[in-house]
């Protein structure tokens, strides 16, 4: 049996998850993102939940320390240089941060619950088949390791009662060979859903750091949700100003280019990627485009709509356009898209992201339809 502390631990995890849910809005809008740890776990920083007590104010108090230095020298030093002896923290030793590990599913579950996101229904035949053995039925032959004791016992009991050899006063049940029951498997065909997310971001001069931060945060949470919904997911990144190129994740969020904006360049590249790598019969395709809405010319916008209509939207589950408000952007592209597809369209979702506080709403816009 597990030590009872595991139950305390489970209680603690439950409380923590509640706190994360309560603070989700804050996490999202302040860009305090869970840090992926590489093994499917995420590290969520949060202030330690301590019991409120009467205690001394921190800063006015100061303290005493030991070591070299002149008055006026900083003592803050490198964090984590504590005493390696016994790790018992004294009171007033400053704020310790609690690090909480959550799995992707747990995090996605919290997000889904907070935003009331529906489960995504994979479209049409966009499935890959695989056979899975599931132990759901009972057989009369099998290896001992799969013996079903309860069912075996029941069979033996039935047999003994019907044969009149069962004595309630001395209830001994002896199963014989024909009573044995085993768990047995049936092969099932499962549909594996795979999806690809193609992010496109406008990195022209008008997209500042704040705008990129918003895109970064938003795409993190979108990825999180989609990853929890699809077994298999690929993510591609495209940046563009007047020309587009495919980049890795790191570059995607860090690059700052300048210059003009030709949105069509990104859409063209997106189209090419879909064409060459993702057969839309097998893949659920999610193109996301983030921009401040400034396009170089109406000419180019026309070209964009063309590509969207004929080559991207027909292949995609949904095309998402997020417009990040910036001081320089005119926001014209949103209007153009809205004029063409309307605010309510099953295949095109448009969302305006005013500032960091609006991220969560925008995520809901994108994912709230479940397609």
């Amino acid at each position, binding site marked *: *049996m597990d*030590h*009872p*502390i*595991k*139950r*305390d*631990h*489970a*209680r*603690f*995890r*439950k*409380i923590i998850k509640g706190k994360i849910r309560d603070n989700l809005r804050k996490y999202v809008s302040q860009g305090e993102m869970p840090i992926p740890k590489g093994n499917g776990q995420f590290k969520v920083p949060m202030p330690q*939940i301590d*019991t*409120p*007590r*009467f*205690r*001394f*104010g*921190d*800063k*006015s*108090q*100061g*303290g*005493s*320390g*030991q*070591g*070299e*230095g*002149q*008055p*006026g*020298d*900083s*003592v*803050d*030093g490198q964090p*984590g*240089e*504590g*005493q*390696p*002896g*016994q*790790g018992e923290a*004294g*009171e*007033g*030793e*400053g704020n310790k941060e*609690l*690090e909480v*590990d959550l799995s992707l599913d747990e995090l996605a579950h919290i997000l889904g619950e907070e935003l009331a996101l529906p489960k995504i229904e994979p479209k049409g035949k966009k499935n890959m088949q695989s056979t899975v053995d599931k132990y759901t039925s009972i057989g009369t032959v099998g290896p001992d390791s799969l013996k079903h004791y309860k069912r075996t016992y029941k069979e033996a009991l039935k047999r003994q009662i019907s044969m009149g050899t069962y004595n309630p006063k001395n209830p001994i049940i002896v199963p014989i060979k024909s009573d044995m029951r085993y768990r047995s498997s049936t092969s099932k065909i499962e549909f594996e859903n795979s999806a690809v997310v193609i992010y496109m971001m406008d990195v022209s001069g008008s997209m500042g750091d704040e705008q990129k931060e918003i895109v970064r945060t938003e795409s993190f949470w979108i990825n999180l949700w989609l990853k929890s919904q699809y077994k298999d997911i690929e993510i591609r990144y495209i940046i563009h100003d007047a020309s587009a190129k495919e980049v890795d994740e790191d570059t995607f969020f860090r690059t700052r280019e300048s210059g003009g904006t030709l949105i069509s360049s990104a859409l063209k590249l997106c189209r090419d990627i879909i064409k060459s790598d993702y057969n839309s019969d097998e893949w659920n395709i999610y193109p996301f485009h983030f921009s401040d809405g400034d396009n170089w010319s109406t000419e180019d916008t026309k070209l964009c709509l063309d590509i969207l209509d004929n080559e991207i939207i027909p292949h995609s589950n949904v095309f998402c356009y997020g417009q990040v408000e910036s001081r320089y952007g005119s926001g014209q592209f949103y209007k153009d898209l809205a004029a063409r597809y309307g605010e309510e369209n099953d295949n095109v979702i448009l969302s305006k992201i005013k500032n960091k506080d609006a991220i969560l709403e925008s995520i809901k816009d994108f994912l709230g339809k479940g397609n």
Partner: protein
Amino acid sequence: MERTKPITGELRELRDEVEGYAREFGLTYFPVVFEVCDYDTVCILAAQGGFPTRYPHWRFGMDYDQLSKGNTYGFQKIYELVINTDPCYAYLLSSNRFVDQKLVMAHVYGHADFFYNNAWFKSTNKKMMDVMANHGTKIRRYMDRIGQDKVENFIDIILSFENLLDTNVLFLDPSYQVREGVVEEDDEEFDKRSSVLRSFMNSKLDKRNAPVAKKVEDDESTLKSIDKKVRGTRDIMKFLMDYAPITEWQADIIGILREEAYYFLPQRMTKIMNEGWASYWHSKILTERALRDSEVIDFADVHSGVMAMSPKSINPYKIGVELFRDIEYRWNTGKFGKDYLECTNLFEKENWNKETNLGREKIFEVRRSHNDITFIDEFFTEEFCQRQKLFTYKFNPRTGRNEIDSRDFKEIKTKLLSQLTNFGSPIIEVESANFQNRGELLLRHVHQGVDLDINYASQTMANVHKVWKRPVSIVTVVEDVEHVYSFDGKEFKQVNLKL
């Protein structure tokens, strides 16, 4: 599944050897039982304050989570764990090297001697292992009956007052730390007596256990007499347990938590001495007796890690062991008393040696009768302060950093003492249990130079209110001006009151 195992084989031989040295040096203690366990178990035990069985509460789970992570990431390691009981249980980590076990054993005998001899530990219950297990059973039973959430939430509230203790209680009769047994089962769902009979019997119950709120209506003079009785009490947990309008199981839980808080109190009051004493003995026993040539480097490595100084806090191990060594040196050379203190010749003073050789005797005496405050107050000298390169630091709002403030001896000593006063917690007293003649509670923070953290105070007050169920106020000093803060169940605000 047994998680700990008694020591066998070479560890047992080692124990016998180390114990031999401990006796040779004159350490005295309850029998020490060493057990071996793996790291996970040490984390569990450490999270539970050293005890194998505690009541269920999420915070043990939190501590366990942090401790086991600390180990996984490699920035923290628990070396030793010893608890103040008879026999004294100590845990050895199975993965430790032989030389580590040697060090830990010697260290543990130091702690065991301290637990056994120090005056502040005299009233602690040496059968705490059983008491903790009983508390676990009791609280689990309440949880089964009343609901886990309800009970756990109440424990959360009461833990807010865990530091509102009166150190003098340690010197009263030990039974004073324990709540007298009242009928354990007394809640309504399980009471088979008729309601009429029950209310009749309740009215006959001892007045002490009856809720105060009721008395407000029917007996004002009682309230006044309570008020007189509790004025100035610092044992806030006992006060709430006796006089707050709470049910029997709630009072019982306060009693349980209070008993455990008092059990741990002496350890909080003697952290520096206790660790210093144990470190003094592990280094003495190892360097003078137990260490083999091949182990010297490993020992030095571990020992220096434990003694590492930090610019932001005082390492109790380091200060403690250095102070004990300093005392021993001073009493060996006669550097104490009137003659020495009044000597004005610096050269003479520096080379003072009367060969009094009272050092060993003196440190044994000190470990018997002092706690951290008196220890620092009496033996923390200017020479020592300079030698240890101590300083005070302060937060500089201009640079946003903590900066070294002063290396002045007096200031450092004052700061150290103020950090240790009342085991580092603010002193809170009951000023009135019938404040404004309305059955409200008025607390007073006995201000000794450092302000309260008002944010924390407001949340704590909210918790007091949940138990007292009437408005709660506190008198405190903020930036040199006396203020009264009040929580009436809805909001926390500063009020202007003529007291």
